């Protein structure tokens, strides 16, 4: 209590500041006057009395200070003075201040942003109960539906049930469909169809994760007992927010998806986004309802419909190794006993060789992680180097400043400033710089992490990342830069205040500690140059990779093609002749549009997914199990639309109908590998088993195309006419001439004239789609270039600063040289050669480091060697030129020195 009121009184004094000082003064004046009166009364001469009173009182200023010191606030006063002085000092050299602040902000901001993204993609634990106890069967990288046997990545529903029933090591097992279903459905009371991302999950999914509803209930085992029985849905908190505006009556709402009406039974908690990082489903529906969700998969009871990611929670005390042994044993037992599994000798032999790998699922799983973990690690190293360069820069700037102030410090010391007070002041100034830079860095980090996640996701709206600025790393980088500022801001402070005053005052420019400063600064600049070279080489390699990638021949011509996603399944179409008719009519109508050259439906074009399996070729006994063929079902104008050249035979035409003989067009790689002898035209093959090996007749050969990525090897591929493969084709491509925007809306209008209810999504040009496939390479190239240039800039500032310092320090010497007849050119050469020496040493150190670093990047490079001499010499050249410019400015200044003036200085 008394302590508290004491603090209160102290604060009161601080607030009253001015008044307080005045009152104290008045009080002491009274004292002095009374004393004087008393002395006069005692008979002392008036003047003598005043003198005595004053003498006895001592130094009034001193006394007043001690009076207010009692309250313990003088440090604030000093601090404010320091801050004031520091701000004035910073404003006096705005260039230096700006560069220091920018270096800090970029260093701190970039590190925090990249780490935040890394954290979101790779490190963050799932927002569920005890995530450390969760494991995933397989890697989680595969998605789709497989009928390959056996498959340790994707599992069938019957397998999941058996594993759940028979295992000894898991407290529960759950399954989720490996793909999100992108459908269009209706919210009750709304007439427009809305895009919805649906995740099918087992009834055990939420109980196993330990996720509890924010409203209503989550799905349970009861919802997943019988096929098609319970049309219930749980919606995500984000979806509830943006599609229902957090309508409180959400639990009474119905969703119509396809022909089925689903009841919303719950809302997931806000932090739960799913188990797959980067994918955020809107709606979770039990796997038992999979046939009701377009496109209507029917694999609930099919042992060969391998489509699920399998996950489980370890029983307490069970290790992942123990669980792995049990799971592998069960994997064999279950697949040997599961009905519907074709146990031919070949399959049994395969099964014998297959092992299930269990992985921790504490941080979820992700294809995004697979794609981006290495680029992110590389970027993390890059920004780490940038931070180092930024710190070196700040160190240099502060060193230069405090050295230039050696004389000022000496003067202030001579006037009675305490050493600790001076050091404290320099400390305050460094601290201010670091904190201001830090604040800018925080702002930059927030902006940059947003930008970065947009770059990573690259408009893929199905993907979403939960990126927040990471506080730990923010504090860490802030700490590093604070430490740098304090260290390099105060080392010279200590040194300067230890000087023998007389020397320092005499020498004026602080030469007594100049050589030491010069050495430290030179070392900093040399390391900056070395680090910059590493960053530049990295940037050069990535830029060349990107250029090489964009020059890759895709096999098709991506210019002037619009691609649209059309969801016929959500509009109620079945995979039958009506669907084929719809596709044909849309193609005809769109082809009739002015400016349209050709159009065609297909399952996909590029970087969207693949449909691949083994094929059997007539005349081979064992089939071609090991040759995977990539299929596509397309319209007859597909090759014209995509600009894929025909090499032999013909493409599809009106003669290829549902009832005519089955035909196929194959790629050149498939022709070469599967039909090596003679022309493949007229040869036969088929999918689905040896008994189908004469189903399809080859009618044409076309050029190979890329399926998933630009850097993939040539793949064996074939095309089938959709008239003979009635299935949903989500992609519609149009080759056109003219204005893209006008064409896009004309096409959409035409489609809706055919069927108003058809949902259209993901409209973009094929060029954009191709560009999107190199997102991470582009990310690497852009960011590393940005940071490389930043590094050069910072290094040049460092070189400029050092050279300016050298020139200032050697003004006398230069003056003498010139007085003795040295021409200006010689002076310039003298200064510039000093700069060149540092760059030379920096390059000598940097080149081996860059070479070693390049080797670590080899995985991410395409068509360029990590020791590419062109990149290396370009980087070195750029550095040398920039450094020359940076050194030339002070050199010119040195050359313009008037010898007489120079000699007169000091």
């Amino acid at each position, binding site marked *: 209590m*008394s302590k508290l009121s004491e603090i209160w*009184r102290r604060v009161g004094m601080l607030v009253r500041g001015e008044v307080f000082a005045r009152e104290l003064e008045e009080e*002491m004046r*009274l*004292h002095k006057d009374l004393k004087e009166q008393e002395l006069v009364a005692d008979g002392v001469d008036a003047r003598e009395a005043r003198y005595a009173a004053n003498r006895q009182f001592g130094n009034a200023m001193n*006394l007043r200070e001690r009076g207010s010191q009692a309250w313990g606030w003088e440090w604030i006063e000093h601090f404010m003075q320091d801050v004031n002085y520091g701000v004035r000092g910073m404003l006096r050299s705005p260039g230096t201040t700006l560069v220091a602040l920018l270096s800090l902000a970029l260093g701190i901001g970039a590190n925090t942003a990249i780490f935040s993204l890394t954290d979101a993609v790779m490190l963050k634990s799932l927002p569920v109960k005890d995530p450390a106890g969760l494991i995933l069967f397989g890697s989680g990288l595969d998605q789709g539906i497989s009928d390959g046997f056996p498959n340790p990545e994707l599992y069938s529903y019957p397998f999941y049930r058996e594993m759940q029933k028979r295992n000894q090591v898991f407290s529960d097992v759950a399954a989720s469909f490996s793909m999100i279903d992108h459908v269009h459905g209706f919210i009750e009371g709304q007439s427009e169809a809305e895009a919805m991302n649906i995740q099918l999950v087992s009834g055990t999914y939420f109980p196993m994760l330990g996720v509890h509803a924010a409203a209503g209930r989550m799905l349970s085992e009861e919802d997943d007992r019988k096929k098609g029985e319970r049309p219930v849905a749980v919606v995500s908190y984000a979806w509830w927010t943006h599609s229902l505006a957090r309508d409180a009556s959400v639990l009474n709402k119905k969703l119509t998806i396809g022909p089925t009406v689903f009841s919303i039974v719950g809302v997931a908690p806000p932090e739960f986004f799913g188990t797959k990082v980067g994918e955020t489903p809107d709606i979770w529906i039990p796997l038992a309802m999979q046939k009701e969700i377009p496109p209507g998969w029917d694999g609930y009871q099919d042992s060969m419909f391998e489509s699920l990611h399998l996950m489980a929670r370890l029983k307490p005390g069970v290790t992942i190794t123990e669980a792995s042994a049990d799971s592998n044993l069960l994997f064999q037992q279950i697949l040997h006993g599961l009905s519907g599994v074709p146990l031919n000798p070949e399959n049994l032999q395969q099964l014998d060789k297959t092992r299930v790998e269990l992985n921790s699922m504490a941080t979820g799983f992700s294809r995004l992680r697979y794609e981006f973990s290495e680029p992110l690690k590389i970027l993390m190293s890059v920004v780490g180097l940038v931070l180092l360069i930024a710190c070196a820069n700040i160190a240099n700037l502060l060193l230069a400043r405090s050295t230039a102030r050696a004389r000022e410090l000496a003067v202030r010391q001579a006037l009675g400033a305490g050493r600790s007070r001076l050091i404290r002041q320099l400390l305050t100034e460094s601290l201010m710089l670091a904190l201001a830079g830090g604040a800018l860095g925080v702002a930059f980090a927030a902006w940059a992490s947003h930008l970065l996640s947009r770059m990573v996701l690259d408009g893929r709206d199905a993907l979403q990342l939960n990126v927040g600025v990471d506080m730990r790393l923010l504090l860490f980088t802030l700490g590093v830069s604070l430490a740098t500022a304090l260290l390099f801001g105060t080392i010279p402070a200590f040194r300067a205040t230890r000087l023998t005053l007389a020397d320092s005052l005499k020498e004026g420019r602080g030469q007594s500690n100049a050589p030491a400063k010069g050495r430290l600064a030179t070392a900093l600049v040399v390391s900056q140059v070395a680090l910059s070279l590493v960053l530049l080489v990295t940037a050069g390699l990535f830029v060349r990779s990107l250029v090489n990638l964009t020059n890759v021949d895709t096999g098709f011509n991506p210019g002037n093609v619009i691609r649209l996603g059309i969801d016929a399944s959500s509009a109620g179409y079945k995979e039958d002749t009506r669907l084929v008719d719809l596709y044909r009519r849309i193609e005809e109508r769109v082809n009739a549009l002015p400016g349209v050259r050709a159009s065609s439906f297909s399952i996909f074009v590029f970087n969207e997914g693949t449909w691949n399996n083994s094929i059997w070729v007539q005349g081979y006994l064992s089939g071609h199990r090991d040759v995977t063929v990539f299929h596509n079902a397309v319209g007859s104008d597909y090759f014209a639309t995509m600009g894929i050249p025909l090499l032999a035979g013909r493409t599809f035409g009106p003669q290829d109908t549902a009832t005519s003989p089955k035909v196929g067009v194959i790629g050149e790689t498939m022709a070469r590998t599967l039909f090596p002898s003679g022309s493949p035209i007229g040869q036969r093959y088929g999918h689905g088993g040896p008994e189908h090996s004469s189903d399809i007749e080859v009618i044409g050969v076309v050029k190979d195309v890329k399926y998933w990525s630009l850097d993939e090897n040539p793949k064996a591929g074939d095309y089938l006419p959709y008239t003979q493969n009635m299935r949903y084709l989500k992609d519609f491509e149009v080759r056109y001439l003219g204005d893209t925007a006008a064409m896009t809306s004309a096409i959409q209008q035409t489609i809706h004239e055919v069927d108003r209810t058809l949902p259209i999504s993901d409209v973009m040009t094929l060029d954009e789609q191709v560009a999107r496939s190199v997102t991470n390479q582009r990310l690497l190239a852009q960011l590393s270039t940005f940071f490389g240039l930043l590094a050069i800039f910072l290094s040049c500032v460092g070189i400029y600063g050092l050279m300016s310092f050298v020139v200032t320090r050697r003004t006398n010497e230069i003056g003498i040289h010139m007085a003795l007849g040295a021409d200006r050119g010689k002076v310039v050469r003298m200064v510039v050669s000093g700069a060149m020496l540092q760059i030379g040493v920096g390059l000598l150190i940097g080149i081996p480091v860059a070479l070693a670093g390049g080797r670590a990047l080899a995985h991410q490079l395409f068509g360029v060697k990590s020791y590419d001499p062109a990149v290396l010499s370009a980087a070195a050249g750029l550095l040398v030129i920039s450094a020359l410019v940076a050194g030339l400015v002070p050199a010119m200044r040195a050359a313009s020195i008037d010898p007489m003036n120079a000699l007169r200085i000091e």
Partner: protein
Amino acid sequence: MNREELLPGTLHLLILKTLARNQQMHGYEIARSIQQISQDVLQVEEGSLYPALQRMLIKGWVKAEWGATAENRRARYYRLTAAGRKQLEVEKAQFDRVIQAIARVIQTA
């Protein structure tokens, strides 16, 4: 004028005791009172008096109020608080203990 150095730590005690004897006093009166009662042996330095008063204000032992002197000049008058009275007892007891201890040491020949 024969001046004695104040024993360290006794200034607070002297001020507290002086204020205890009188309702309220300003700084000069306090100094004079100590000087007179000690028959000019103890003289409080103004340089220590005012910082000491500030410290005692912080501690809450005294309260200050502006008033007018007999000659109608503004002066800051100090008076003892309850906490100050308690502190006086504490310091007196402490002082007595120290004095007795010193006396014992000196008298033990």
